[in-house]
């Protein structure tokens, strides 16, 4: 590969690569605002100007392609003085909003101002005033004064969503962002501009003014909204999720996530309908009981029944580990063949950017983990039919509101001898259940999901439950968690009594006299690898931050 020299170090580059790209590959960040790796080059912020030997003028690193033998200085006096000067220009008109700006703490302008400017301004004239609260669409708010005209948002709408709602209008320092006449900035991915906006000019209307960035912890995990499995970060303060943001994974979601996933998948974690503790029906009332009592009770109820009268419905939102335990319990402890899950596919709801028609995050992994009827067993439709006909007398259902499917189903469920619901939320099915086990949501547990591509990715706990083990479960901590303040989420926060599905099935199994020796979700995964080829030799470290494409046999792929 050809090489050029950057600040005295030789760097390899692929022909056609720009200086900024090649530098980034070796971990050198040439300061920039307008350049973004997945957008076209705009070259207007002028912060990435570098000195190139034998070139008469400074050149922008974002649009200058590297060439063999080129000698680039990104730290020379000339470069630094230009960079500082451009920073000074940017700050001349930038409002002093930091104390009330959502972006503070993750603001490129703030960061660079600390690193690359003088700390005082030579210019003290009145700043230019512009509109400060312009809703561009249902989700995004624009502050004209904070905008540094980098055009990232415009390029995002032009190039990524191809919806083109945004444009600059006016000239000079009157330049500002608007939507085209009659248009709203209302597309399925609009909120991504709040992530790529280098300053606080575009904010998430759902999150505005909710928290300071440094008060939250960020946990890398996966979106639960569909089979894409976008990589995200879950932002928590005081044990409450306040926002989700996408995290880069070029094999899955690039830098993006959809607005649905961002806004609609975390609030239920804190809904009033969450089930807190184990309940059993006594004289028509749900009575809180201990876990052990509920396990023992479930075991004795189920033991009375013929194994062909018992069915288990799993959830494609559960993790592979959850479903492996579920299938193992059903097939080897209950010895029932009737195991399946219910897919949630909404035809026509997908697009060619990210959103998938399959709304479950782990249908693929659920099947791989062994959730399917054993030979001669009933599949999902037959199980539900059996419930209606009365041939199925006991049902264990995980996170699936079967009663909401139809009045007929609801009546049939009410007539079951035993209905055990494992559920995150109260719903019409849990209302009919003899025993309700509270399950942890995706935000409260470790585990893996397999997306539609067959890529296994880790979910991680961001919110703590009563039983979560901080160390064992590796919960991310914010600065304040570590040093302790009144916002310490381990102190005053609400913690629910709920467990991951795999643990609930391990508990049931023990009550049947079959103790399972797993302490963590990872133990389950490692064990799965011994019996299921797709998971062979996997552990959490191997899956890592970016996930691993499973090697699937031709049969599975079909």
């Amino acid at each position: 590969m050809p090489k050029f020299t950057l600040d005295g170090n030789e760097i390899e580059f692929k022909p056609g690569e720009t200086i900024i790209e090649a530098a980034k590959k070796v971990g050198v960040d040439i300061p920039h605002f307008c350049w973004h790796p997945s957008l076209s080059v705009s070259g207007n912020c002028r912060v990435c100007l570098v000195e190139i030997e034998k070139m008469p003028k400074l050149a922008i690193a974002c649009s200058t392609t590297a060439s063999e033998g080129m000698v680039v200085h990104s730290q020379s006096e000339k470069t630094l003085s230009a960079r500082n000067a451009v920073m000074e220009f940017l700050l001349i008109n930038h409002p002093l909003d930091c104390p009330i700006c959502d972006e503070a703490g993750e603001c490129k302008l703030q960061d660079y101002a600390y690193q690359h400017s003088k700390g005082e301004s030579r210019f003290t004239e009145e700043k230019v005033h512009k509109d400060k609260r312009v809703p561009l669409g249902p989700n995004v708010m624009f502050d004209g004064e904070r905008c540094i005209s980098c055009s990232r948002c415009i390029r995002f709408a032009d190039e990524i969503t191809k919806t083109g709602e945004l444009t600059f209008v006016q000239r000079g320092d009157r330049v500002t962002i608007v939507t085209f006449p009659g248009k709203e900035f209302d597309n399925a991915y609009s909120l991504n501009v709040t992530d790529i906006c280098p300053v606080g000019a575009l904010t998430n209307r759902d999150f505005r003014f909710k928290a300071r960035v440094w008060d939250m912890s960020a946990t890398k995990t996966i979106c639960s909204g569909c089979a894409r499995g976008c990589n995200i970060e879950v932002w928590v303060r005081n044990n409450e999720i306040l926002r989700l943001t996408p995290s880069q994974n070029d094999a899955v979601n690039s830098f993006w996530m959809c607005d649905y996933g961002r806004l609609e998948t975390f609030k239920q974690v804190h809904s009033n309908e969450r089930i807190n503790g184990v309940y059993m029906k006594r004289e028509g009332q749900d009575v809180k009981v201990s876990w052990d009592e509920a396990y023992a009770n479930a075991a004795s109820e189920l033991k009375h029944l013929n194994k062909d009268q018992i069915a288990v419905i799993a959830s494609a939102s559960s993790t592979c580990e959850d479903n492996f335990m579920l299938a193992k319990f059903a097939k080897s402890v209950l010895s029932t063949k009737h195991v399946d899950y219910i897919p949630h596919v909404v035809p026509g709801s997908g697009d060619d950017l990210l959103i998938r028609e399959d709304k479950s995050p782990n249908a693929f992994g659920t099947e791989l983990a062994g959730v399917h009827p054993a030979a001669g067993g009933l599949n999902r439709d037959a199980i539900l039919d059996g419930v209606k006909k009365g041939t199925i007398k006991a049902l264990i259902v995980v996170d699936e509101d079967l009663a909401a499917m139809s009045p007929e189903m609801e009546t049939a469920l009410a007539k079951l001898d035993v209905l055990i619901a494992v559920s995150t939320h109260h719903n019409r099915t849990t209302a009919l259940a003899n025993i309700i086990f509270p399950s942890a949501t995706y935000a409260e547990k470790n585990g893996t999901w397999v997306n539609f591509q067959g890529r296994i990715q880790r979910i991680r706990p961001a919110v703590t439950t009563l039983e979560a083990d901080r160390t064992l479960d590796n919960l991310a901590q914010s600065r304040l968690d570590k040093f302790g303040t009144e916002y310490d989420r381990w102190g005053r926060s609400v913690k629910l009594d709920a467990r991951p599905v795999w643990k609930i099935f391990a508990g049931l199994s023990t009550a049947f006299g079959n103790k399972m020796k797993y302490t963590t979700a990872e133990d389950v995964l490692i064990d799965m690898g011994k019996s299921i080829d797709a998971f062979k030799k996997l552990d959490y470290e191997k899956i890592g931050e970016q996930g691993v494409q499973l090697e699937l046999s031709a049969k599975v792929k079909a």
Partner: protein
Amino acid sequence: MKLSLKKVDLILGSYSNEEYKILFEMLSRNSDEILKDLIESGLKGRGGAGFPTGLKWKLCAEAVSDDKYIICNADEGEPGTFKDREILDRVPKRVLAGMALAAKVTGAAKGYIYLRAEYSFLVNKLQKELEEFHKILKSNNIKFNVEIFMGCGAYICGEETALLQSMEGKRGEPRNKPPFPTTTGYLGKPTVVNNVETLVSAFMVCRIGPEEFKKLGIQGSSGSKLFSVSGDTPKPGIYDLEFGLSLAEFVDEFGDGDTKAVQVGGASGFCVPRKKFNETTIGYRGGLTGDSLPTGGSMMLFNSSRSMYNILRNYLDFFAEESCGQCTPCRIGCQQLKNGIEAVKKGEKDPEYLNQLLKLSDTMKITSKCGLGQSVANSFSSIVTNFTEEMIY
């Protein structure tokens, strides 16, 4: 009008109905020969940047593409420049002839005249000329078609890449260079963008031959060019003058006896004070890449009744208004310079503050994206340093 300076009449003179006949004689020549003549002549662009015309055509000719374009830049937006409208009005055949030559050399089949919106009064005349031009081309079996594209009304749209953006229906904002229009121009295809006068000059070079052309002017600035003379002068107008004369000679001819400064090259050019008239030669300054050479040909004379502060403020008003606002230094710098000199004048800032502003304008020169922001410092520093007292009191 009597002119004591060496009189030239290359661009506008001896215009006749024979222009196209001469063109076809040239078109029968080999492209390489035409290119050689142009390069030999040392002709440089008359639109502002002073890029060697022969080299520009050569680069476009070497670019490989089925589609190429020739664009005549008739946006003429530089304050104090009004020669392109005269050329289009008086010798339109020569402009089209220049375009046809460029088309022949580069292999383009399509051309556009990007006409300043305010010049709509020229449209009818040009359309008629185009009809005749196309008819004659057709009868000679030459595939070249020229259309008029009405300019988009902003000064910045005269900058060649902003011009291309606006032609593509986009916001008129300069692009990054490289790539240059010669390889990536209109619709991403190789394109020659030339000033109206450059095209005529190219045609005239081929007509009189590079040797004759080079007899005019001086080393590095060959030929003659049209100057738009305005301001405090008894004879405003356009004049075809040889390069190489000194500003003193120029002021002798055109001044009103009380000239204190000449703005050479319009708002984006330099202001030369009386004491430097003798040492200033009119011509291109420097190398190939200077983006801020005041070659548009505007000459504004100011006598002692003029306030240089007002003149500078006027220019800065213009730049603050016309900066496309795309890049940081120019978007904010233009406004800042304007606010700055106002504050000094009002006494809100110390005179010392002018030095800060000078540094700021220097930064704009180094860091701005296009010629507009890069050349604000020309007038700013030449006026502020030569007329500091007028800025303060």
